[in-house]
């Protein structure tokens, strides 16, 4: 449809209001407006404030379920990793962190993927994929569910014993208890033939924390706390095992916990 003087007048008026007419047509419309009272009235009617529209729809943005949208993105990133470029581990890290936001009940807004090369410098390919697996498993927890998880002491004890046998570590209740944290789940994950123990903790003071331990040599020794938007994590290796600690807790807290974990379980 080419706009011309014979176009439906309502279409012309709206386009005029939206400043989408070329100068010639614009002048033509103004000429008609000047000459026609009724047309001016219709213009006034049409000039229903688009600001009202915009404001109404902007309030909709506040309704957006951000934690769930982030989790959806995290899943998308896990499912669609970039290939043949080890910078994609950052996207997977984003996945892990964003999914943890899901169980933090929206504690800290968005997780923005960090610039390439800054995270997990020492991680090898297995690490990246393992973390993706942890991320994938974490998404099974809904936003408010961690604190509400009921713990059966007998079952938990049995799980800890099994995991301890696998890792050749003493995972007795006293050894996996940390101040301010309540152990909610002790689970065994399997990934690429590798067994991984995951301990999921609820906290009163901050968000949930997950500790993952894998029996697999070869990781790098020293970890550093990475932090973004209230979510912190630390990754390190010690002897034949690798550790990942991730949670919505302050940096110092993650460091403190990592120290405690390392102290109890280092070889």
């Amino acid at each position, binding site marked *: *449809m*080419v*706009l011309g003087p014979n176009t*439906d007048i*309502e*279409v012309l*008026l*709206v*386009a005029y209001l*939206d400043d*989408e007419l070329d100068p010639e047509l614009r002048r033509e419309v103004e000429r008609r407006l000047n000459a026609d009272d009724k047309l001016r009235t219709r213009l006034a*009617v*049409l000039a*229903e404030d*688009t600001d*009202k*529209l*915009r*404001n*109404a*729809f*902007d*309030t*909709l*943005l506040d*309704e*957006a*379920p*951000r934690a*769930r*949208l*982030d989790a*959806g*993105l995290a*899943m*998308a*990133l896990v*499912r*669609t990793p*970039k*290939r043949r*470029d080890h*910078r*994609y581990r950052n*996207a997977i890290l*984003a996945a892990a962190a*964003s999914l943890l936001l899901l169980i933090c009940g929206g504690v800290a807004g*968005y*997780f*923005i*993927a960090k610039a*390439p090369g800054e995270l997990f410098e020492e991680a090898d390919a297995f690490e990246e994929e393992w973390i993706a697996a942890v991320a994938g498993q974490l998404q099974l927890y809904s936003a408010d569910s961690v604190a509400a998880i009921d713990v059966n002491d007998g079952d938990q004890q049995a799980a800890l014993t099994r995991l301890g046998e696998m890792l050749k570590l003493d995972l007795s209740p006293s050894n996996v208890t940390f101040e301010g944290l309540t152990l909610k789940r002790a689970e065994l994950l399997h990934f690429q033939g590798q067994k991984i123990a995951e301990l999921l903790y609820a906290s009163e003071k901050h968000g949930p924390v997950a500790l993952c331990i894998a029996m697999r040599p070869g990781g790098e020794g020293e970890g550093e706390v990475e932090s973004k938007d209230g979510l912190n994590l630390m990754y390190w290796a010690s002897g034949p095992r690798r550790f990942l600690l991730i949670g919505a807790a302050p940096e110092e807290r993650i460091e403190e916990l990592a120290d405690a974990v390392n102290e109890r379980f280092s070889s």
Partner: protein
Amino acid sequence: MTARSYDVIAGELPALLPRLWRYGLVLARDPVAAEDLVQATCVRALERSSQFTAGTRLDRWLFSILRSIWLNQLRAQRIRTGQGLVDPENVLVTDGVEEIETNIFAGQVLERVMALPETQRETLLLVYVEGLTYQEAADVLNVPIGTVMSRLASARMKLSALAGSGA
């Protein structure tokens, strides 16, 4: 997939999620369906990252993808329920009187807009809320620019009439 495009998309997506959800909401009129649309859009955008030119508007590209996924869902649903393929322009009577089941659209303006036919709603959203020009909207919607104009005119006349009558 191009390393750079993928990174750009992954990096910018988080900030765009609420706007994508809002667009999905205008199309599907259901918040949960909108969430699914957003996630499906993320997957497809990442899969097709090589088709995105870094430096161009990512939001426009994502709107197109979301819309395409929505239309495919509609088409599949219509075939399943035996309704066949219906030209969206012709659905307007039914859409207009359909009850809006969710109260997320409370408020006169939202209620009135969400009662409009789908094609008019989404055109309004793209032009007046997302700020696309007529041509950009035409590109996203894959229609001639004249269609954008007539949809806007119809929608605005309808909204003005409703406002005037105090409805």
